[in-house]
């Protein structure tokens, strides 16, 4: 653009207007139409949809690249390919950066990245959540080291802000290489089903470097991350759904780590009895049941926003409200892989628990878990260190911690799903609970092995000894006798007791964290 200087006030106003209009047009109507044809919105349309009407203030729309190499001196990149600013989302301030695919394919260059880092630093400074609307073809290689080093500053900014403000990434386009790194390091990633991608390298590069032939969809689409890699927390149907889901997530979070999560009015009786829970546990301990209906009945208005729904499905985690208070809920799914904690389930729950702890969100566990998974696949895969993550997460947590043991709570899973010794404030158990160091048949095969082997009727001896162990220990009473369980409750009273516990723990945040001896952080297994 030519530098027009001088002129009357009217001329200067007109020039400004002209230039401003040009930037607002982004890559032009044709380019925007192409996005629409794919079912996608433009960057500015997304910002318009996301923020409360008229509340968005844009910062840095006039920033331009300064590299002139490889034709960049002739390239116009409106707003440097990223729209940054702040506005209100459901009445609360949020900072956002929306990558503009129509502006040199939303590539990340020096000033694009500086805008992003500055926006992040700004959000951290103000104590406002940060959301990226990702839609980019990748790094702007033309700028060489200016691009590479700026990525580092961006990563540093977001890590410096991590745990201070909630950070959410919305994957609404191809985001490969560096453009996949800053999303994945945020607290939550919401990926659109057909148009959102994330990968360390794209198919072309993978083919030339390793010879592997694979499609973009298979390498980096929603299934890859929501199902296999556990890097996408929520899958959205399209741009609007993605933005809606982001707003819903934000409604559970405080704006920053010094605030409490926003409590709303609760129209669902906090002491509501749930008679169906009295009969949900099957007679036989080998029979599974579906945990989802239990969760839906316990929380306010049946509203549960699941995180990592398609990943590590033997465990369940997500956000809900209890008596208007946002809570993080963790549980097991007996219908899938016996509800065990395997490597992925441990990672999933640990990451979720730590986010809740960072942002003062109370944690509630509904437990029915027979064990950490055993066998060579898990042992060689490091179930020990992955399982340890769960224990670290609970013990490090200083938010209210409430557990309700519904059925099994055996061995390591007892701490993995939150018990008193690892840090729970309250532990309740149903009469159907089996809180024991090991199941009866496992115990029999160890402590009575010799007796059974040497008996005249091993089958009968085994059965007798298993029954004996089961009657003594596969109940809640032994644990309750010692005070390891606060009360054995009627299942129908689960919601009531959790809410009463949370009432009692309302002010825990004032003391719990500052009462600790100083250290940088625990050496959680990674």
């Amino acid at each position, binding site marked *: 653009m030519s530098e027009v200087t001088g002129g009357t006030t009217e001329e200067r106003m007109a020039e400004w207007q002209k230039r401003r209009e040009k930037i607002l047009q982004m890559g032009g109507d044709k380019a925007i139409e192409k996005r629409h044809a794919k079912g996608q919105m433009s960057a500015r349309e997304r910002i318009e949809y996301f923020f409360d009407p008229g509340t968005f203030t844009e910062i840095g729309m006039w920033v331009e690249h300064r590299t002139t190499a490889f034709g960049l001196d002739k390239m116009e990149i409106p707003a440097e390919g990223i729209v940054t600013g702040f506005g209100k989302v459901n009445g609360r301030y949020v900072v956002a950066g929306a990558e503009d695919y129509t502006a040199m394919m939303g590539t990340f260059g020096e000033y694009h990245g500086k805008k992003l880092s500055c926006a992040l630093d700004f959000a951290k400074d103000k104590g406002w959540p940060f959301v990226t609307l990702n839609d980019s073809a990748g790094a702007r290689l033309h700028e060489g080291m200016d691009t590479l080093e700026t990525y580092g500053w961006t990563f540093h900014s977001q890590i410096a802000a991590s745990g201070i403000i909630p950070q959410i990434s919305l994957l609404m386009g191809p985001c490969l290489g560096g453009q996949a790194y800053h999303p994945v390091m945020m607290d939550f990633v919401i990926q659109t089903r057909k148009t959102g991608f994330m990968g360390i390298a794209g198919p072309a590069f993978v083919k030339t470097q390793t010879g592997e032939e694979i499609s973009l969809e298979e390498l980096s689409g929603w299934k890859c991350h929501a199902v296999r890699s556990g890097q996408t927390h929520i899958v959205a149907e399209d741009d609007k759904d993605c933005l809606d889901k982001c707003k819903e997530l934000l409604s559970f979070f405080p704006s920053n780590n010094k605030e409490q999560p926003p409590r709303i009015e609760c129209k669902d009786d906090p002491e509501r009895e749930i008679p169906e829970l009295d009969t949900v546990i099957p007679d036989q*301990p*080998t029979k599974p049941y579906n945990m989802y209906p239990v969760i839906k009945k316990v929380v306010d208005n049946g509203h549960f926003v699941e995180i990592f729904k398609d990943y590590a499905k033997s465990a369940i985690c997500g956000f809900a409200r209890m008596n208007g208070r946002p809570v993080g809920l963790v549980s097991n799914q007996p219908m899938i892989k016996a509800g065990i904690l395997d490597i992925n389930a441990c990672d999933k729950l640990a990451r979720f628990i730590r986010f809740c702890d960072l942002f003062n969100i109370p944690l509630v566990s509904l437990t029915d878990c027979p064990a950490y*998974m055993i066998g060579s696949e898990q042992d060689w895969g490091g179930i020990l260190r992955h399982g340890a993550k769960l224990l670290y997460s609970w013990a490090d947590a200083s938010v209210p911690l409430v557990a309700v043991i519904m059925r099994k709570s055996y061995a390591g899973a007892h701490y993995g799903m939150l018990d008193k010794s690892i840090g729970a404030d309250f532990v309740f158990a149903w009469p159907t609970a089996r809180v024991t160091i090991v199941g009866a048949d496992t115990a029999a095969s160890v402590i009575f092995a010799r007796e059974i082997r040497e008996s005249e009727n091993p089958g009968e001896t085994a059965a007798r000894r298993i029954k004996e162990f089961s009657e003594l220990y596969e109940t809640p009473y032994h644990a309750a006798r010692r005070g390891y369980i606060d009360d054995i409750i009627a299942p129908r009273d689960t919601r009531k007791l959790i809410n009463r516990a949370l009432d009692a723990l309302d002010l825990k945040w004032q003391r719990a964290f500052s009462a600790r001896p100083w250290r940088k952080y625990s050496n959680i297994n990674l």
Partner: protein
Amino acid sequence: MQEIIEAPIPGKVLSVDVTVGNTVEEGAIVCTIEAMKMENPILSPVKGSVTEVTVSAGTAVKTGEKLAVIEY
């Protein structure tokens, strides 16, 4: 398109609920595996027809082992 139903954990097949030629709804039980002291129902993630059944009651299976194939 084919959906290959695999064992999610190692265990023993307790029962097989489908035979080749059956049509199944999404969420229908294909077979049940006993593992970690529990009965684990293995559900079909798709609606389709069963074209292959590779296990029977009593078969020991490893993680990832093929149990059945659903054509959809």
